[in-house]
């Protein structure tokens, strides 16, 4: 016999119960929401570090500085030599004039201060930006670059990239711990909310059991209650994260040119999906944990 339980009835029961347990429901939503906001914060920080590492070209790139007073032919020959190295993908030649232009641009309205350095007064060297594809070969490439005649210095940004990477890892580690602890707290609060809801309806549940209602009919409203708590929390958390992020995007970091902030539109789907999945799962786990004995028979 196919059973057709009225879904609207079951979900209606969940909303009624949430409303009746107002304070506990609010507590559940608040705690789960805080948890999600913290998770979201950590994830967004890590996303942005990744984006910045990429933007700054810290990965897989070295800069070779060329001796002053080299002739154009000598510089050209250095470029050919670098190009012939294994693993090198691209060599970009930045002349000293271009480098000065770059400085002027970065200085904005004070750019004119560099004007007197133009031409023969330019103290900047020509540079080669060397891109390579295999990070593990970085030290070999650096060694080879160091031994090309006419190159006086090689800046290996691997070290910076590595430092940033380890910072990122520690942030992730802290984030995971926060996540774990806060999720446990959330589940604990949800378990208590649902237990209160079960207690408020214990006579109803008893009658349902004697009548022969299936375990699912009895427990589904409570599981829906957990899901609703999860959905509400993720919705509000998303809104708050969005507002904070937008504030930082427009006001917070605009003064620092070095750092680019990912536009929220690029990451909102990931954040929202993550929030909803974690929120709903936590809600379901919380409900089921408090309903084990009713799911049996």
């Amino acid at each position: 016999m196919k059973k057709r339980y009225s879904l609207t009835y079951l979900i209606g029961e969940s909303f009624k119960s949430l409303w009746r347990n107002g304070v506990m429901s609010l507590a559940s939503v608040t705690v789960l929401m805080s948890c999600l906001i913290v998770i979201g914060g950590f994830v967004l920080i890590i996303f942005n570090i990744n984006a910045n590492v990429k933007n700054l070209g810290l990965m897989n790139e070295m800069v070779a500085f060329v001796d002053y007073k080299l002739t154009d032919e000598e510089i050209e020959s250095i470029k050919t030599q670098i190009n012939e190295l294994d693993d090198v993908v691209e060599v970009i030649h930045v002349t000293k004039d271009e480098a000065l232009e770059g400085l002027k641009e970065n200085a904005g309205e004070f750019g004119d201060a560099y004007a007197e350095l133009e031409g023969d007064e330019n103290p900047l060297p020509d540079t080669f930006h060397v891109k390579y594809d295999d990070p593990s070969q970085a030290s070999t490439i650096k060694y080879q670059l160091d031994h090309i005649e006419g190159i006086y210095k090689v800046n290996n940004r691997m070290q910076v990239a590595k430092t940033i990477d380890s910072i990122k890892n520690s942030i992730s580690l802290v984030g995971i711990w926060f996540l774990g602890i806060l999720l446990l707290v959330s589940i604990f609060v949800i378990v208590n909310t649902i237990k209160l809801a079960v207690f408020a309806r214990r006579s109803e549940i008893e009658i349902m059991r004697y009548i022969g209602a299936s375990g699912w009919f009895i427990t589904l409203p409570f599981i829906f209650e957990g899901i609703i708590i999860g959905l509400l929390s993720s919705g509000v958390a998303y809104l708050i994260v969005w507002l904070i992020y937008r504030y930082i995007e427009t006001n917070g970091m605009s003064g620092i040119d070095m750092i680019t902030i990912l536009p929220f539109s690029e990451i909102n789907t990931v954040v929202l999906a993550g929030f909803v999945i974690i929120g709903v799962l936590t809600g379901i786990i919380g409900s089921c944990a408090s309903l084990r004995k009713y799911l049996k028979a």
Partner: protein
Amino acid sequence: MIDFKNVKKVYSNGVVALGGVDFHVDDGEFVFIVGHSGAGKSTLMKLLLREEIVTSGQVFVNNHDLTKMRNYKVPRYRRELGVVFQDFRLLPNKTVYENVAFAMRAVGTPAKKIRKRVPAILSTVNLYDKFDCFPSELSGGEKQRVALARALANNPKIIIADEPTGNIDPHMSMEIMNLLMKINRLDKTVIVVTHDQKLVDYFQKRVITLSDGKVVDDHVGGMFE
């Protein structure tokens, strides 16, 4: 059909509630189960409802072996029973109609069928005119009739009434008992647990007497000491 075969029930605290009970109830029978408090009546009820499992022996109800029944099959089994309690156990925030409809909804009856059947059952227990009342607006007898209607809602084969007249004045008790008789004539097995001697004597039905966890008497006719 109900069959108890040498049923023993010992609770985990060592209390022997039933010490070897044997009896058989045929389909369509009307049986009183009587005995002083502590005689084992409640345990017998719990075994019938498969709330508890026997320590040894066997319980068969409608060809189900309750001793071997898996937990997930219990809800479906309970739909073959209609239960009435001394304290009615109605949902206070639902009307008479909703209380009965609730029992049908809980087992997945389609809404259309519920709308059709609830008025019919309420008529059977002579409560049709009170369908819109809340339990608090009803007398004890009326509440018990709602409980009876609810027990009948899913058309069970067996009705089990645990002290159905315990909280009701004598006049109303007769009415409830007459209703149970009427239900019995509808070809349902009726088990009434009670210690109301007058009722038992009046109706002259089969009486099973329990004492200290054993069946001490089982005969048709009134009289119990």
